[in-house]
């Protein structure tokens, strides 16, 4: 299957934050909601932008990690943090030019959007988005 891509169209965002809730509940543990990997920002009057990881190729987070804990899956193109390997030096949280590396101060771990890999493998934020703001499309096959 071709890799998924999240498409964000802020013009449709109504600031309902359903995406944040969906994300937090999906990635929580033992029924507790976790911090959302998706953040909706208010940029003007009634103007909202959900900011999520773009799963960049040659990502800054990957490059900045001194232990090689962050990598991009060659097939799914998802940039993933291996929590076992991570030493929490926080370099990636600063390095991401889009501010999409989050740190959970309670659980003491770095997290980011993984397109719900392992959680139904389909982005929940998009599933719960009441408008067309967040949608999913399949990329062209990797050559």
């Amino acid at each position, binding site marked *: 299957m071709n890799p998924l891509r999240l498409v964000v*169209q*802020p013009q449709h965002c109504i600031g309902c934050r359903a995406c944040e809730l969906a994300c937090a509940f999906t990635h929580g543990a033992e029924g507790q909601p976790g911090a959302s990997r998706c953040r909706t920002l208010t940029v003007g009057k009634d*103007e909202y932008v959900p*900011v999520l990881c773009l799963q960049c190729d040659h990502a*800054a987070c990957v490059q900045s990690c001194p232990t090689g804990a962050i990598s991009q899956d060659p097939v799914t193109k998802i940039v993933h943090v291996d929590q076992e*390997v991570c*030493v*929490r030096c926080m370099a990636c*949280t*600063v390095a991401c030019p889009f501010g999409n590396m989050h740190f959970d101060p309670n659980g003491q771990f770095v997290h980011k959007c993984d397109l719900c890999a392992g959680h139904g493998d389909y982005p929940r934020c998009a599933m719960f988005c009441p408008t067309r703001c967040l949608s999913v499309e399949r990329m062209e096959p990797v050559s």
Partner: protein
Amino acid sequence: MEQTGPSTFYMTINGRRVQASAGEYVLDVTRRNGIHVPTLCHHPAVEPFGSCRLCMVEVTKEAWKGWKGLMTACLYPAADGLVIETDSESVHRVRRNVLDLLLARCPDSGVIQKLAAEYGVTRTTFTPRENPDLCILCGLCTRVCETAATAAITTAMRGHERVVGTPWGGPPPDCIGCLACAHVCPTGHITFEEHGLTRSIWGREFELERCADCGKPLPITRDQAAFLCRRQEMDPSYFSRCADCQRKMVAERMGRMARWQTLGLAQEPAERGKEVAR
């Protein structure tokens, strides 16, 4: 060179047939299969070391004619036909003694107390150390410092005098204050403090990098940023803003783009202007 064996094969762990592949260690295989083997000195970010001896398992093979040996799972290469017991009597004897010894060394460590209790040791049967601390000398801190940072700390001395420390016991000149050592320490022996723009660890104070926009402290030190630029070959601008400000910038820009898009324009006028000028 001829191929010495197939790249995937089967071995038996606690009577269960499990698949493994060349290049894996026994511990990788047990972990993948949810078989619990305790460890204290293991961390996937660094090379296996084999110092705590807790992950010892009993290994044999049909060809060994009944001979069994205790091996550290973290270092023993997975191989075709291995028969492994992770909880045999001799395995327990080693683990119980190791934990008893560690409890004599670090009687106040909650982590060790808990693990030791699992092997029936609630109080050490040995002579407890005078003035104990929480360091079990697993060497994770020094190893992670070497792989992820600057090898600023080291094990010094040898034998029973061995300690983890800094050159001449003073503030380590090469330290970048990244806290990786503190985060990997299994017993919480390595401590640090953060006040405002200052972080202190190993008796050294570090100034935190500040966000170029909002001025708030970033979770990395100036030395760390400089180190990352050098070692990871990145431009300093990558380490100049906080995640909040980065997100704000992205959101504002995307918001603007959305605004133009609603107006039926494909690109921001300013950007288009630039392109034309070029």
